[in-house]
């Protein structure tokens, strides 16, 4: 095959170089490859030329990877770092940790150029994290805004309260708000002095202890018709002839309501599609499996999937696998656990300032969620609970809120179960919702009037004693008194959804409230739960905030909310079915990222954190809550090291860990604020930096050399890392970052050590990424 003319060889050289160039850039088509093979077989001169060319490519790649290609131009590495300095500072914990580890292990190795190495490895380690983190931040940029919004939620409420006719007394004296007077004092000190100049049409001049129907009428004759907490349509019980309310409303039959799950899901899709059309928007494309899989686990089970669970999902074929996963997760005990943790936090908070039995409450909730008890039944149990805090977990909800004349119990009940923010109406009428009056707050509060708690000593089987709370009711009746901002005394009877109780003794008022819930024509319990669950899945509810659905609230999708409210009632308040409908709705499968053609447009037109109404054309990313973060880090590290998942992750330690993020205000509303802004390095530090560092180091060691089986290659290890942390395969840029890191390290370390350290750095970088900490 030798002896071709020089001209022919020349021609072929040109062609060969063209092909070699494509080869270097991985741009060869299969036809190109065929030709390249032919040419290389043809002449050894061409092989030499080919090698020369591709080796030059190799030199450029190698030297660039080692920083010797910077030439006189701008040193790209520094430029790169400068361009993401913010992210570098975000992950400074990671960088310095990486640096520290390095310097301690490298000591014995021969290091000719050790002086510059320290800085370089620092830069490289930062760059690894930086490369990952910046990419992710761009994709999930809205997350930080969401967190800010969440952190500022209290402020928003404050702003709302501080409208002009609200006197800021309530702000200046939060521990002793005006208008709350101990009941016993009312009779003795009716506030006659302040009463004289004011309008007196409603004031109860001297409230006598035995209230009768006449004073009941005195309360209601102020001309305002809608006295019920929210409902306007219900007929108010006149109270003139019946001392016990008669429940007549029927809620069971809802015309035109599909009972079939698929029909319900279809209707959700229709209503959302209609709203997209009306708003002239296009929804995001369907999410990748990795994104959706992670979202599903975090939403249902409250943690990321393990690497094993990811692989199981990916190995299932067919388009039914998402549906199958939803069904599997619904019946999984971890979903019940996750729901119970969520609701413990909502019901009594994380900081538990009143020292109630958090664990017993959670056990109660977990058991009910696991059995999928009707939601309205659970609400009823929580409201009507009696007995000991350790024996009846449900009692702990009210036990945590009975302080200050049960005003927190009133506010929290209204907010969580009815989606009504009434705490500000405790002291005054709602500032801009004329339908929400101060007396409605106290009418709800009156249901808790009989309820009291006491600390009792009980003997344990082992002979020791402990203190437990006991929740009990008196049978006494009577009215509840409160004071207006003008200092007038008023009195109300328990009233909910248009039904008013009498003042008579012998009525168990909490039981009555529970009965009234089921006949509420507004279906507030259902509506509030639908909204909260929708918010849990999408990162935004139909109202903002999710638990403020009063008459003044703007509802983004009234028809859909009302449809789901009815469907949930019709289902018998079946929590799991509600979750299934939302999870299988078309919208919940759309991507949260803006990383697609037109993504920026979707992002801009549908971005509720800017204060616009959500359109649900995508799922809104948000930060994990601390419990999700804690469990997810554990799952990730156990996956890396190949350990099986524990059936129950250590909840005790988690509870303690989470408390670090909680600031309890100790106010009357028993408010607390979560001081968690998604700063993962802070979170990782709080995990006890050294423990975590050791856990990661050990996990990586057992990843590289598993207890049974052969040593793994670098790419196998990296894949396990990214699968464990981000539920997906590593991206090309991540593989590059890993290799560059490894390449730098191997010059001064043994191969094994270099690979381990590079993997550790990658694991830190993954854990530090916005992609990890976001539920997206």
């Amino acid at each position: 095959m030798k002896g071709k003319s020089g001209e022919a060889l020349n021609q072929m050289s040109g062609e060969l170089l063209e092909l070699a160039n494509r080869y270097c850039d991985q741009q060869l088509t299969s036809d190109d490859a065929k030709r390249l093979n032919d040419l290389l077989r043809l002449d050894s001169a061409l092989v030499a030329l080919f090698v020369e060319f591709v080796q030059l490519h190799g030199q450029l790649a190698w030297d660039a990877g080692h920083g010797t290609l910077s030439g006189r131009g701008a040193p790209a590495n520094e430029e790169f770092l400068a361009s993401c300095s913010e992210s570098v500072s975000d992950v400074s914990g990671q960088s310095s940790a990486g640096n520290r580890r390095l310097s301690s292990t490298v000591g014995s190795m021969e290091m000719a150029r050790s002086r510059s190495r320290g800085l370089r490895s620092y830069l490289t380690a930062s760059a690894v994290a930086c490369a990952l983190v910046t990419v992710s931040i761009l994709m999930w940029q809205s997350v930080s805004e969401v967190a800010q919004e969440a952190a500022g939620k209290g402020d928003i409420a404050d702003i709302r309260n501080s409208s002009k006719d609200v006197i800021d007394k309530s702000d200046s004296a939060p521990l002793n708000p005006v208008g709350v007077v101990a009941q016993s004092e009312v009779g003795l000190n009716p506030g006659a002095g302040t009463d004289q100049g004011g309008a007196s049409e409603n004031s109860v001049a001297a409230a006598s202890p035995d209230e009768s129907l006449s004073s009941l009428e005195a309360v209601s004759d102020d001309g305002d018709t809608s006295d019920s907490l929210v409902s306007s349509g219900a007929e108010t019980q006149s109270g003139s002839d019946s001392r016990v309310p008669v429940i007549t409303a029927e809620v069971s039959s809802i015309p035109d309501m599909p009972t079939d799950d698929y029909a319900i899901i279809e209707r959700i899709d229709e209503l959302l599609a209609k709203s997209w059309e009306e708003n002239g928007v296009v929804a995001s494309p369907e999410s990748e499996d990795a994104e959706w899989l992670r979202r599903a686990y975090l939403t249902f089970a409250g943690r990321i999937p393990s690497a094993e669970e990811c692989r199981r999902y990916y190995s299932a074929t067919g388009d039914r696998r998402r549906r199958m996963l939803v069904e599997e997760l619904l019946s999984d005990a971890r979903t019940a656990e996750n729901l119970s943790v969520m609701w413990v936090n909502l019901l009594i908070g994380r900081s538990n300032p009143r020292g109630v039995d958090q664990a017993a409450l959670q056990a109660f909730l977990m058991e009910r969620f696991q059995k999928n008890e009707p939601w309205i039944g659970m609400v009823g149990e929580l409201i009507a609970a009696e007995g000991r805090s350790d024996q009846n977990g449900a009692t702990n909800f009210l036990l945590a809120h009975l302080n200050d004349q049960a005003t927190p119990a009133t506010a929290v009940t209204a907010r969580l179960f009815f989606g009504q923010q009434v705490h500000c109406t405790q002291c005054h009428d709602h500032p801009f919702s004329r339908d929400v009056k101060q007396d409605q707050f106290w009418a709800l509060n009156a249901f808790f009037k009989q309820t009291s708690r006491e600390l009792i000593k009980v003997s344990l089987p082992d002979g020791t004693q402990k203190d437990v709370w006991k929740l009990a009711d008196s049978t006494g009746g009577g009215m509840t008194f409160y004071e207006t901002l003008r200092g007038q005394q008023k009195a109300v009877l328990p009233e909910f959804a248009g039904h008013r109780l009498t003042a008579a003794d012998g009525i168990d008022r909490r039981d009555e409230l529970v009965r009234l819930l089921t006949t509420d024509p507004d279906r507030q319990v259902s509506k509030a739960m639908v909204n909260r669950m929708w918010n849990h899945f999408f990162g935004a509810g139909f109202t903002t905030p999710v638990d403020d659905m009063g008459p003044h609230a703007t509802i983004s999708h009234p028809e859909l909310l009302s449809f789901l409210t009815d469907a949930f009632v019709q289902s018998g308040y079946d929590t799991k079915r509600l979750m299934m409908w939302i999870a299988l709705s078309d919208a919940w499968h759309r991507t949260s990222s803006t990383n697609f053609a037109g993504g920026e447009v979707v992002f801009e037109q549908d971005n509720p954190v800017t204060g616009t109404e959500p359109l649900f054309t995508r799922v809104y990313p948000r930060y994990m809550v601390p419990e999700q973060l804690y469990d997810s880090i554990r799952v990730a590290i156990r996956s890396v090291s190949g350990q099986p998942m524990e059936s129950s992750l250590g909840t005790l330690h988690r509870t303690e860990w989470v408390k670090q993020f909680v600031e309890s205000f100790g106010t009357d509303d028993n408010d607390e604020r979560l001081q968690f802004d998604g700063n993962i390095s802070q979170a990782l530090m709080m995990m006890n930096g050294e423990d975590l560092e050791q856990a990661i180091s050990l996990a990586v060691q057992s990843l590289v050399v598993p207890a049974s089986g052969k040593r793994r290659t670098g790419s196998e290890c990296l894949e396990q890392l990214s699968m464990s942390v981000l539920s997906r395969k590593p991206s090309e840029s991540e593989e590059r970052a890993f290799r560059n890191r490894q390449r730098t390290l191997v010059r001064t370390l043994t191969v094994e050590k270099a690979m381990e350290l590079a993997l550790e750095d990658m694991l830190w970088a993954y854990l530090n990424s916005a992609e990890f900490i976001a539920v997206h």
Partner: protein
Amino acid sequence: MAGPGEDFIRLFTQAQRALYLYIMPLVSSSADADEILQETNVVIWSKWSQFTPGTNFVAWGRAIARLEVFRYRRRRDSRLQLLGDDVVELIAEQSAHQISDADQRRDALAECVNRLRERDRELIQRRYNSNVSGDEVAEQLGRPANSVYQSLGRIRRVLMECVRRRLSSAGAAT
């Protein structure tokens, strides 16, 4: 038994670049070359006692690398099967020859990169410094990918010519 001595570690460290350059023409992508190099290193490290001091370390490593390349090709996707096994053998043989003058080549290349036009140097640095694909470079620069690939090809040829010239003039001088 003691681990590898200082001499071994030094030889090992020095051989990294040469091995990388040996592997590169056989696989074309730096990610694959890196992976194979690391696997080669693992083997080298585990067989350190089999190395005879005084013999050619790079040649020893190359033999290991060659086996790793073929092992890698067998379990990887079709991207690597673009070249036939026989062609890879041809390249491997040739590649082994050409890395002997790698040090001079490195210096020459560094100088040639410095002599590039500003624009061309920037393109090369973008492509290699953070080791991104031509598509990504094109995106960064807002240029069509096709034209970036063409430019890269042209610059590589310029650099190859430049290195050749410098090596031949250096050869003539000594």
